């Protein structure tokens, strides 16, 4: 069965006729063309598809699009402002928190979710918030440093 689903994605109201079994990641990538959200393990284990639903971390690959109808979804495409990188993006760029880049959208959205609840997390809290996100390049040290740089005054270039 298909249903008309409404949701706010990155600040814009969307209304689409979609199959009930469509996943949120399929809706974002294939219907809306928001391909910044990555499909990694495809089973809820790697965090590459992390987006925010009502400001909280959720995984696009285990969430049915219809089940979040009426809610507010944010993806990596929403964090820049008029072409300027967000502090987190700038920090990942400057502190080498991104190498191949595949896990980065999920890492940044997971960190974004953390910083909204807790603007000055300690290292343990950062590690906990990113514990569901796998990176096969960096060994995580640079990712933790990137999040720390983003919350420090003067931690990233203006």
């Amino acid at each position: 069965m298909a249903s008309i689903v409404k949701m706010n994605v990155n600040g814009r109201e969307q209304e689409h006729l979609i199959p009930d079994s469509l996943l949120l990641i399929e809706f974002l990538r294939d219907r809306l063309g928001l391909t910044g959200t990555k499909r990694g393990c495809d089973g809820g284990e790697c965090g590459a598809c992390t987006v925010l639903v009502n400001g909280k971390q959720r995984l696009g690959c285990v969430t049915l699009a219809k089940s979040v109808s009426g809610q507010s979804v944010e993806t990596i495409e929403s964090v820049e402002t008029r072409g300027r990188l967000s502090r987190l993006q700038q920090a990942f760029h400057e502190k080498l928190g991104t190498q191949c880049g595949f896990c980065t959208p999920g890492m940044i959205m997971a960190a974004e979710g953390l910083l909204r609840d807790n603007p000055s997390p300690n290292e343990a809290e950062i590690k906990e918030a990113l514990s569901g996100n796998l990176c096969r390049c960096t060994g995580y040290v640079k990712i933790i440093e990137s999040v720390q740089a983003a919350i420090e005054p003067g931690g990233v270039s203006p």
Partner: protein
Amino acid sequence: MDFDLLMPTSAAEAIALMQENPNARYLAGGTDLVPNLRRGIGAPDILIGLDGVEDLKGISEGGDYLTLGAGVTLAELEGSGLSGRYGALSAAVDIAGPALRQAATIGGNLCLDTRCIFYNQSKWWRNANQYCLKLDGDTCHVAPKGQRCHAAFSGDLAPALMVLGAEVRVVGPNADGWKPISDLYHEDGLAHLTLAPGDLLVAVRLPVVSRDLRSGYLKSRLRKAVDFPLAGVAVALRREGDAITDLRVGVTGTNPRPLLFDGLVGGMDQGPNDDALSAITKEIGQMIKPMRTTNLPGLYRRQMVTVLTRRLITDLYDAGDRKE
């Protein structure tokens, strides 16, 4: 994966929908069910989503009980701060990963399907292996000579809630009442839940007196996030002076059901000692059956149950509530 997703707004409506559609499945957070369906494990025509069911939400404290709605998410439970008073609920803090806990629910974790390395695989993989006794096949690859499914129950909350004396409320076409959480389970990997068709787990309640118990939960897993427990142990005990006067141990990850061991205080008048602890872990060892259902051998998981049980009892005795 092709199904209709129905979105009832009350428990009564959800149960009625299930009676009209006997092949439907309830969908709570979906963090285990959705990956399974995508792998071709089950193919229901209809899912009955419980997200919008208001009766399942909320945490309330009144009278003799603390009541948790089955639809309360693990993140909400974590944010409630209850593990400060009920130490074993710290189990909730470490289930899966942060994003999964935003969706996953208490009821979903209690009704989690049993797991096995021969079952939680893609259809292609299982086909190449002639499927298995749990689904579409006729041989259990863990114990090929037997006719039993050894898939292990791997929920973290069940043992923690068991040692705290929790009860569950099940509502269905022919049911509405509270029962001990142990009664929710069978020792059968194929059908480990005692729920009748249409039955819905609505709430869990804890006797507030269990606040007086010292309790904790520890588990063994390879990755410290997302992984299911390969063995998990919850302990609740009461210390009066030097004596342990109440001791309960809950175990998960080893059998098709979570297990509760109660009344284990023998020989603990002066607190934990090697003889009494050995007797307890021997009694537990006779009941647990960790098989080759995970990426760690059964013997290792058996030893971890002993290690975690001893560690929790001695630490709780010495210090109070214990968190991982």
